[in-house]
């Protein structure tokens, strides 16, 4: 029962936006993209204890894969698969040298990676359209079934979100998930009992990056227009905040974080600068007083 209740609430909550007006539906769709990215980052940061400040760059790989392959007439799903694969591949490339040393190096290497990807997107005009970006990105269609309308596309994204959530759940309850947790709790002990630290950390990071690729792929047709400005370091930091605020290394964490980070600005109606300041303060206060994240409140409410 304790398991079914949140699941039921989740399904209901996920279907509720279908009744929303256009703008609110858009915000809900965006929340799904963020949720997928936050789940990926939570795997990397929350479970394996690796900081990635480059998730927006992996997201960009997915978005541009869909946009560029779409221009050449390939179906959306091919772009999505390529985007996820690119995320995974670059996750390995970036993670390999960084994880050779200490865990904090990854943060700076991914930060640099984010800056480089941004520069490439802006300067490789023949492929990416430079600062103008790529427009008229088509939404997927399966023969006669088209996901063109906002509601249909929301449902389509929901399907992928379900795939991501289920696969993440599966990974975390498998042998891998236990290894990830062992690494986070105590690196030395994990190594002593035979967990190959580096391989697991690398996998946790690369899978997180692949999820970011999927999130990015779904993001591109949502607006039908992308440009490098959407994949800056600030965006990466936003994902980090979602995971930290929701609750590091908790399966519920990204859900809380993604909803909070997209809905809060809508409620505050403040300028972007001000809510970035509020997030920054929230992160610091969270580390000081509630290091387990908002999910701790939920735990307290349920009484465990």
């Amino acid at each position, binding site marked *: 029962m304790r398991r079914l209740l949140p699941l039921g609430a989740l399904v209901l909550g996920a279907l509720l936006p279908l009744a929303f007006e256009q703008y609110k539906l858009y915000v809900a769709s965006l929340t799904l993209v963020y949720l997928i990215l936050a789940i990926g980052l939570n795997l990397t940061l929350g479970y394996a204890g690796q900081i990635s400040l480059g998730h927006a760059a992996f997201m960009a790989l997915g978005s541009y894969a869909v946009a560029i392959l779409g221009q050449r007439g390939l179906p959306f799903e091919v772009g999505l698969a390529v985007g996820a694969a690119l995320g995974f591949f670059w996750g390995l490339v970036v993670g390999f040298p960084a994880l*050779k040393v200490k865990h904090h190096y990854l943060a700076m290497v991914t930060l*640099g990676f984010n800056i480089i990807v941004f520069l490439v997107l802006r300067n490789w005009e023949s492929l990416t359209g430079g600062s103008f970006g790529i427009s008229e990105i088509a939404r997927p269609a399966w023969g006669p079934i088209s996901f063109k309308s906002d509601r249909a596309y929301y449902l389509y994204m929901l399907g992928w979100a379900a795939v991501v959530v289920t696969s993440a759940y599966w990974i975390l309850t498998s042998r891998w998930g236990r290894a990830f947790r062992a690494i986070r709790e105590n690196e030395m002990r994990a190594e002593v009992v035979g967990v190959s630290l580096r391989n697991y950390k690398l996998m946790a990071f690369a899978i997180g990056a692949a999820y970011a690729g999927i999130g990015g792929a779904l993001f591109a047709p949502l607006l039908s227009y992308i440009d490098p400005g959407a994949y800056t370091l600030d965006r990466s930091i936003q994902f*980090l905040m979602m995971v930290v605020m929701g609750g590091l290394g908790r399966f519920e964490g990204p859900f809380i974080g993604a909803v909070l980070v997209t809905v809060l600005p809508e409620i505050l109606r403040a300028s972007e600068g001000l809510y970035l300041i509020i997030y920054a303060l929230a992160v610091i206060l969270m*580390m000081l007083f509630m*290091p387990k994240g908002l999910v701790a409140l939920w735990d307290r409410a349920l009484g465990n």
Partner: protein
Amino acid sequence: MTDFIQLLVAGISIGSIYAMTAIGFVLLWQTSNTINFAQGEFVVLPAFAMVLFLTVFRWPFAAALLATVLVSTLLLGFLVKEVLVARLLEAGVLPLVIATIGLSLLIRYSLQYFWTPLALPFPPVFSRVPIRLGTIVLSWEELMNVLLVGIVIGALQLFITRTKLGWAMQAVAQNRTLATVLGIDVSRLVTLTFVLNAALAAVAAILIAPVYLVKYDIGIGLGLKAFYAAIIGGFNQIRGALLGGLLVGVVETLAAAYLSSQFRDAFALVILIAVLLLKPEGIWGVKEEWSS
């Protein structure tokens, strides 16, 4: 050839500022296991303070400089150590890292939101009259940057190797538990390191401000390069950070001129990845034992 020498000097000049920022970074890591992701903003905040004192309050240069160092050491030294670091030190590396990321955002966006999103001009500290050596044209700024950084780092090195307080710092860096047993007040030394770092950052701010202009977001690139410099040279050595800083400055200046100016910021990362693959402890670094 003339171009090359001019670029080399420019690279060394900017590199020396990276080096100074990187050294503070290394000191913090050594004595308190703090990886300060706000290091770039630790330079930006004093730069804004200097603009405030110098161009808004119109104080004389020396008074403005003194006030800037004071503000920097109080806010970024004492306050950050007491409020954040002292409470999170025992929780391990990760929470402190996340907190400093939060701090960097807080400083960056507060400056943007409450002050200005625009770049503020900064009055030149040194004469703008060029120095001509044959066909080579150099600026006082470049030469004085290198000289000043050299003096500061020399003084720091003397402090660390020749004074009791400096020895205590080394002891804490090597083994915190043992240092406590020896009767060293570790907490006080951590405070000292934060104050030192803040003072170094304030000097770096005054040197870099005329080069970059004062803008809320210059800390991202600066902090990144300081970190790269520290890893490239060797994270546990002052001389490593010095070497790394100079290397990053020279390589990016030369590469921007000869290879691609659009990808200027990417070259430091390329050296970093090469170093991580070939000699992960850094060019001049020493392998570390398990420290967690």
